[in-house]
């Protein structure tokens, strides 16, 4: 970083939040520079302080946060100490903003035209007509067809991706010099994400706007940025050109972060180097299944072949109810889906949001009753069972891990009671002492200490809570585990730990798994066979290697095209697994 300064300079920034538990320093010693036409990526995990930097630049720190030290210069002019009115002038006029959620960035009660024209006339000396002309031009530029007509519409008439385009147009209204984009594509599906990123890069070059992109996603970083700043706990640990940071990182944190990114191109045995970020602080000993509680009293026979068979499953939701059957509207969430999972196999279901993959999982777990079709599990037809008693036998053998670690544990129960509940219910132990012993053992097993038992869920981080969920699922000694997006709410390094844990457990316990994810690289790391879902239908089922190397269905090919390639990423310390011969 040179002393003569760039377009935007952040110098020695420190932001503090006074709380009743003392002063919390969100970011410290942050120095960043953006040049015209350059895209600077700011990457880090949740709580690293990356959004705080963006908010500090535009003077929108949430109270009681305050800038305690440092300065922010726009073209050599210091802007952080300006009076409120002047900052407001700069915000929107010279610095544009794009936020994560396109739904809340637009006023739902005003037409797009009104919002754009109002913003333009506030900042530029243009008449209504000129402003409207400029607005139409902008919409056209961000790729909205028939901009002339669509400008009169309301935000709800646009899809999510289109809305984010409108938000970008809104940020460009006053011809800003700098744009700050906070997780601009996180709320969007992959296919739309790629288009939006392309658009942002083009606009940035074309208008020589400097851009800071704040994201947790290495794919976004690899796709679009020129330089990257890696944040860790409020500090910038490393800055440099994107290729250098991704391919040959210096700082140990960056190295462990990059090694934790799931690769789309190879399958790894385990994710290495996660020790730097390891928060659980416990190493788990490998398990001797023969002598362990989890391996004992297996009341099911070792079925060969298919453990689970789903036949012609159909599930529809009523989207508009009416007394007249003809006026009702339905959504076919699962549309005649059939597949089977072999004993000991990890079967993946992949698809974009709304493709029905979670609904399939919930039907199998017995949370929904399908409209037609059958689920066969371990020789019984689950969908034909009537009494709760009959179902209990199968429930014991089948457990589920949920997506959101913050809502999957009852906040009013101690961890001990949460994990013990299935043991008591299925009468897998006879005395309180025995149950306590099993729970402690399970907790140690998923990488938490036994002392976690007496705590409440809110005392744990997302990754630790997911470990508790896994312990609860294991407590019935299941043979089949349904994982519904188990890591999509987690940071990438925590995701690597949880995926490692699931791999270990699968191997040690010989578990069969249904693994659901929207994330293709994660699927590649975890699964033996994959089914691709779209609009409730199963497009293609094939062994993982085949899906990734020779996809048959056009939709699978399309999904793979959109997947970030991440070839620039460092391969240091990775242990590649040879493709299994099927």
């Amino acid at each position, binding site marked *: 970083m040179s002393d003569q300064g760039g377009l935007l300079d952040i110098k020695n920034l420190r932001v503090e939040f006074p709380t*009743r538990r003392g002063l919390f320093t969100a970011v410290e010693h942050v120095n960043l520079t953006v040049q015209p036409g350059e895209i600077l990526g700011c990457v880090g995990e949740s709580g690293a302080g990356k959004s705080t930097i963006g908010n500090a630049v535009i003077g929108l720190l949430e109270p009681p946060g305050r800038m305690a030290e440092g300065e922010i210069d726009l073209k050599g002019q210091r802007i952080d100490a300006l009076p409120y009115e002047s900052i407001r002038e700069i915000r929107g006029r010279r610095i544009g903003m794009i936020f994560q959620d396109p739904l809340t960035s637009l006023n739902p009660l005003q037409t797009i035209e009104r919002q754009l024209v109002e913003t333009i006339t506030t900042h530029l000396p243009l008449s209504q007509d000129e402003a409207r002309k400029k607005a139409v031009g902008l919409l056209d530029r961000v790729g909205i067809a028939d901009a002339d007509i669509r400008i009169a519409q309301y935000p709800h008439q646009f899809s999510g991706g289109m809305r984010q385009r409108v938000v970008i147009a809104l940020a460009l209204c006053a011809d800003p010099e700098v744009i700050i984009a906070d997780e601009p594509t996180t709320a969007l599906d992959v296919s739309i994400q790629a288009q939006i990123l392309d658009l942002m890069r083009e606009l940035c070059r074309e208008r020589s706007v400097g851009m800071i992109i704040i994201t947790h996603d290495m794919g976004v970083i690899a796709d679009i940025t020129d330089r990257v700043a890696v944040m860790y706990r409020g500090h910038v640990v490393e800055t440099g050109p994107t290729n250098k940071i991704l391919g040959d990182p210096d700082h140990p944190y960056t190295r462990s972060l990059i090694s934790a990114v799931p690769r789309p191109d190879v399958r790894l045995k385990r994710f290495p180097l996660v020790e730097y*970020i390891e*928060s*659980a*602080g416990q190493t788990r000993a490998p398990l001797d299944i023969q002598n362990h509680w989890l391996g004992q009293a297996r009341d099911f026979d070792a079925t060969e072949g298919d453990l689970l068979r789903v036949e012609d499953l159909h599930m529809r939701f009523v989207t508009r109810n009416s007394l007249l059957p003809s006026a009702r509207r339905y959504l076919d969430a699962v549309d005649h889906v059939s597949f089977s999972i072999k004993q000991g196999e990890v079967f993946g279901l992949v698809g974009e949001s709304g493709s029905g993959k979670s609904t399939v999982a*919930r039907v199998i*777990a*017995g*949370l929904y009753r399908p409209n037609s079709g059958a689920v066969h599990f371990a020789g019984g037809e689950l969908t034909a069972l009537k009494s*709760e008693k009959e*179902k*209990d036998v199968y*429930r*014991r053998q*089948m*457990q*589920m891990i*949920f*997506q*959101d670690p913050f*809502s*999957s*544990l*009852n*906040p*009013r*129960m101690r961890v001990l009671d949460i994990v013990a*509940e*299935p043991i008591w*219910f*299925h009468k897998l132990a006879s005395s309180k002492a025995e149950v306590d012993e099993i729970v402690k053992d399970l907790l140690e097993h998923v990488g938490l*200490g036994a*002392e*976690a038992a*007496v*705590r*409440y869920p809110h*005392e*744990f*981080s997302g990754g*630790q809570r997911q470990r508790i*969920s896994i312990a*609860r699922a294991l407590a*019935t000694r299941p043979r089949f585990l349904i994982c519904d997006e188990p890591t999509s709410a987690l940071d990438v390094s925590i995701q690597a730990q949880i995926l490692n844990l699931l791999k270990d457990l699968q191997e040690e316990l010989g578990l069969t798994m249904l693994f659901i994810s929207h994330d293709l690289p994660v699927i590649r790391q975890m699964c033996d066979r994959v089914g691709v879902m779209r609009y409730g239908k199963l497009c293609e089922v094939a062994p993982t290697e085949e899906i990734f190397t020779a996809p048959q269905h056009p939709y699978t090919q399309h999904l793979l095209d959109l997947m970030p390639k991440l070839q620039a990423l460092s391969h240091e310390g990775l242990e590649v697994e040879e493709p299994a011969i099927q």
Partner: protein
Amino acid sequence: MSEESGKLQQASPGLLARALDSDVYHSFRRSPLAIGAAIVTLAFILATILAPLLAPYDPFDPSQIDLWDGKLPPFWEEGGDARYLLGTDNQGRDMLSTLLYGGRISLLVGFAAVLLGMTLGVALGVIAGYVGGWFDAFVMRLADVQLTIPGILVAILINGILRSVLPIELRDELAIYVVVLAIGLSDWPQFARVTRAATLVEAEREYVQAARVIGLRSGTIMVRHILPNVLRPTLVLATIGLALAIIAEATLSFLGQGVPPTTPSLGTLIRVGNEYLFSGLWWITFFPAIALVVLVLAVNLLGDWLRDALNPKLR
């Protein structure tokens, strides 16, 4: 994240320590109004519980009542008697003692009625929200219908029916239970509505689904998982409901539909005093009325504060 692993090594704090460390307690300490209201409410509750120790006389003991002492003004007025600090009523009962014993009945009826309304409302709300279907529709429409009629009218109606069913000789004896039942039954729809809404939210959360995957029966899930998580919003309702129930009791008693004059509550005292108000005996109405206003105001302020403290948006 090292602070998290550091956290793991500490022992889990006890219930009291956690309560003292909670956001609600901190918001309480920062609100002088809430502290004042809590002190007044607690003082009131203590004073009425300890009435037999604090009160100079027992207003229910006829041997201590002398009609010749009737209608004495408070001691600072002309003709006042130092034995009766706040004067006496028409029958010669010491106002201060009657007030303490009367407040006891008001509070008792208030608490019991809210407890009844809350139990009924929360139970129906949780079942309606979790089970859904025709039961949900039936309970909620019933609540809607009842909410179209002012609560006090419902209470008067229930009170009237129950009293007419009871044999005459039991009416005075059971009056207090009848009043509790009447107010409690007029109170449940709000609890049911709030609880049902909270239950709908909780039932969608993944810990409830996890419980279903384990195989737990609906009853267990409702009691162990949903109930503890939906009680929070009803706490606010219960506090404000307490103030309303005390007023409802006073209203019923004032109208002569509540507890009999032999065991007077604040409302009964106000009614009795009302007859003498224009003959200059202001103290018989004035003191119970002031007590009622202060008590209800304090409880209401406490409820208001609790609502704000539990609302994450206002923090």
